[in-house]
């Protein structure tokens, strides 16, 4: 139907059809073999499938390998400060309900330097998608321990092995007040990852997705057990969860029936000891949203604003 003006026929067709190329910017400069490439492809595919207007789409990121992401999208982008993507994204969304906002962050950016903002981003529950690229190592600064590095990880800051158990971002997230969407996927599961991001994008609130990755340079063994050993990965499955084909479903030896409305079970599955679960842990479509507060008086005219201002000045009149 490309090339036919929408008003020529009696159908509600978009005048413009966006192809993958419409979302592609400069060539990604991540290392060969990095899972970031796969996530970029999945996100560009989502943009095309959902026909998101590039000018109405904003990718906000912090600092780190993952946070270069906005540069590779031909949308609006904000590559800001280390750990501070959430406040910027919240500001973008606060008075612009028309903008589709994505936050791209990494395990250092989100779970370490930006952890304070992460807690509150979940609580604000503003409609946006947050993708945590978790490769459990600092990559851009060359191999330092991250909060999600497994115990004993040998890095440039802990050459004799890290001394603390890793933070579990899913467990952490499920403990925050007003959390409304928590999912986990893996960059080597492209079909599952795409469906997870898609589900997150449809969520009416703050959708948090942790994407398990391995860093081909600094953390070759990261989640390698999972890649190499399918028994390590369990699939959370439910009709309200992430949509998967039978083929994908059957590739998992462990399938856990989990209703994403059940936060107690979600917390239980987040804390599995010998397995890692992927899928939708929790969803609440009715959690209070701060962006609705932000936009509640957007429709005021300048005359109404002026009248309001004058009424306030009256209070100070003598």
């Amino acid at each position, binding site marked *: 139907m490309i090339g036919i003006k929408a008003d020529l026929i009696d159908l509600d067709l978009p005048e413009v059809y966006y192809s993958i190329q419409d979302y592609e*910017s*400069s060539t990604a400069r991540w290392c060969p073999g990095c899972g970031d490439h796969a996530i970029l492809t999945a996100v560009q595919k989502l943009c095309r499938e959902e026909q998101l*207007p*590039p*000018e*109405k789409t*904003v*990718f*906000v990121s912090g600092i780190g390998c993952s946070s270069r992401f*906005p*540069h590779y*999208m*031909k*949308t*609006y*982008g*904000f*590559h*800001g*400060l280390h750990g*501070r993507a*959430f*406040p*910027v*994204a*919240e*500001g*973008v*969304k*606060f*008075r*612009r309900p*028309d*903008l589709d906002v994505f936050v791209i962050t990494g395990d250092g950016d989100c779970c370490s330097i930006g952890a*304070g*903002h992460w*807690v*509150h981003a979940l609580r604000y529950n503003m409609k946006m998608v947050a993708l945590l690229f978790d490769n459990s190592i600092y990559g851009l600064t060359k191999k330092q321990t991250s909060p999600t590095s497994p115990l004993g990880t040998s890095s440039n800051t802990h050459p004799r092995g890290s001394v603390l158990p890793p933070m579990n971002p899913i467990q952490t997230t499920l403990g925050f007040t007003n959390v409304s969407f928590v999912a986990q996927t893996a960059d080597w599961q492209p079909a599952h990852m795409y469906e997870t991001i898609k589900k997150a994008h449809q969520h009416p609130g703050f959708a948090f997705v942790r994407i398990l990755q391995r860093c081909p340079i600094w953390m070759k063994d990261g989640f390698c057990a999972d890649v190499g050993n399918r028994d390590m990965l369990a699939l959370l499955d439910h009709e309200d969860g992430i949509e998967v084909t039978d083929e994908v479903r059957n590739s998992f030896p462990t399938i856990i029936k989990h209703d994403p409305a059940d936060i107690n079970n979600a917390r239980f599955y987040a804390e599995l000891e010998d397995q890692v679960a992927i899928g939708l842990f929790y969803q609440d479509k009715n959690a209070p949203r701060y962006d609705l*507060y*932000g936009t509640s*008086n957007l429709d*005021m005219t*300048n*005359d*109404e*604003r*002026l009248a*309001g*201002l*004058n*009424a*306030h*000045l009256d209070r*100070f*009149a*003598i």
Partner: protein
Amino acid sequence: MDAVIGNGTEQDIMLEPVVLDEAIIEIVSDSGEGAQKCGQSLGAISARMGNGVWTVEIIPAEIQPPARSRAGASGIRVRIGSEKITNMGDHAQLVVALNEQVLYGRLEQKAYKPGTYLLIENKWANDPLEEIRTAYTEDVAKFREMGAAVYEIPMEEECLKVVRDARKGKNMWVLGMLCYIYDRDMNEARSQIRKIFKKKAEKIVTDNIGLLESGYNWARANMDLHFSIPSMATDEEMVVMNGNEAIALGAMAAGFDVCSMYPITPATSVSHGLAEMMESAGGKVHQAEDEIAAIGFAIGCSYAGKTALTVTSGPGIALKTEFIGLAVMAEIPLVIVDVQRGGPSTGLPTKVEQGDLLSVLYGAAGDAPKVIIAPSTIEECFQFVILARKLAESFRTPVFVLTDANLATGVQPFPRPKVSKDWFAPSIDQTPWTEGLSPYAWDPQTGLSKRPIPGQKGGMFTVTGLAHDEDSHVAYDPSINQRAAEARSRKLAALQQSLKPPKVFGAEEGDLLLVGWGSTRGAIEEAVKKARADGLSVSSLHLHFLSPMEPDLKKIMQRFQKVVTVELNYSDTVGRPLITYENRRYAQLATVLRAQTLIDIDCYSNVYGQPMSPIRIYNMVKRMFAQYQQQLKEQQS
């Protein structure tokens, strides 16, 4: 005063008021006794009568400090004059104290002088506790010894004749007493009470008016103090508010959509005002999780098309600094109000200091040029927020508005601004972006460029804090960094070219020029006036733009023998241990001006946490002239 009230005693007829040009009155009490409401009301009544007024609150650091403690003094100073009043002045003429202990703090701050009238609640003389009775008696005797004219007033006793609980309402009785002493219009006083209690039950209103009249009548029958401060009646509509309220109203008049803040003294009341009012004037207040998030959120709003405001104080600026650097680098318009307090660190949270100039100017990593303006009156607090938004958008840069704790709590009447829709921010530009135009197409002459806003078709680009070229692409070629830094710096030069030279207060040339910025203007100009009346050749210059600076400063300063900045921040004094002309650290504006003009500018500054008083400046000027005369004599002999 017409004889509506009063019982027609002999004193009514005999006591003609003594006419004053001005009076400084303080009311001090334990926290929570309503001294501030009493003083604010006295100020409002006087402003309505056409007097010049400046009020400033005396705030203890704690919310509910122990009763009758010296450090817990809470209160207010009201300065009323026949003409416009621009600062808190020097010594109080009259002080009302609800207990004698709270006076000590003010005595230590040299707020009073021999001859000051101290009107003290006398109920402590009969307190059930012996130690309180003793303390009261001894202290009152001590105050008399120090030369104060002490009046022991039965406030509680008189209030109990009107109401059952004297603790609530004693402030209105005091207001009535002061209305008699300073010959205030009682009709205005009654309507003031109706105004402050308008949301309360009628019984409360009538009780308080009863207390007011009781205080008035008691003073009329018993006090030998009676003054009047003539006023110039004006038809002009006036408003009265403090600097923080003026910033809040200015923010709405500027059409800001969002104020993003985190609580910090003494800036918080700006957001209190906005939280109360902004919703119905089309905006929103966002209370962020911390100072960093507050500015990040504001930058997000600005980036998305609506320039936002963030309000903070020194410690908040320290936390926000990385984001300020980003806003400079990415050229994102933003307004940052810094209500300065004593530093460094947590410092003096409720006290005034002009200590953030250098940190705001130079705090960020690398070269981060930004605009800094400083209002010097309450009215300018209102106006400068509007100016700041326009500058931020025109020059695509963060703009700082530096006020301080003195402006924040100082209350002054000014003509009601004739607000207009034209002052509001324009609606977000959503027209398609000019094809082929880069997001940083720096004009080689001005450094200026137009910014694309999300929603504009064809304008898609990625903001970055990394060095970038015109297309916002990460710069791998270092020459781009040099060119971009030039462009950002040139914007300030472009703004500077459009500014007018500042006006000298006093003669255009002479022996001594005082240079100030921010809240000290009223005190400096009052001191200059006084010194000029003594025949001294002194003028002053007040800077409103601190980055870029107004033009011709060097030319103006060269017309004076000596230039001294007057500032509320720290500087070394030559002659103190180890301090020499070589190692002396100068006050902040002096440091900048010396570097810019190569003139040997001196400075007079302190960090007592008190507003600069005219008498301190006047005495400094006198000393300086005496030294100068001495030097001349020595040279001659």
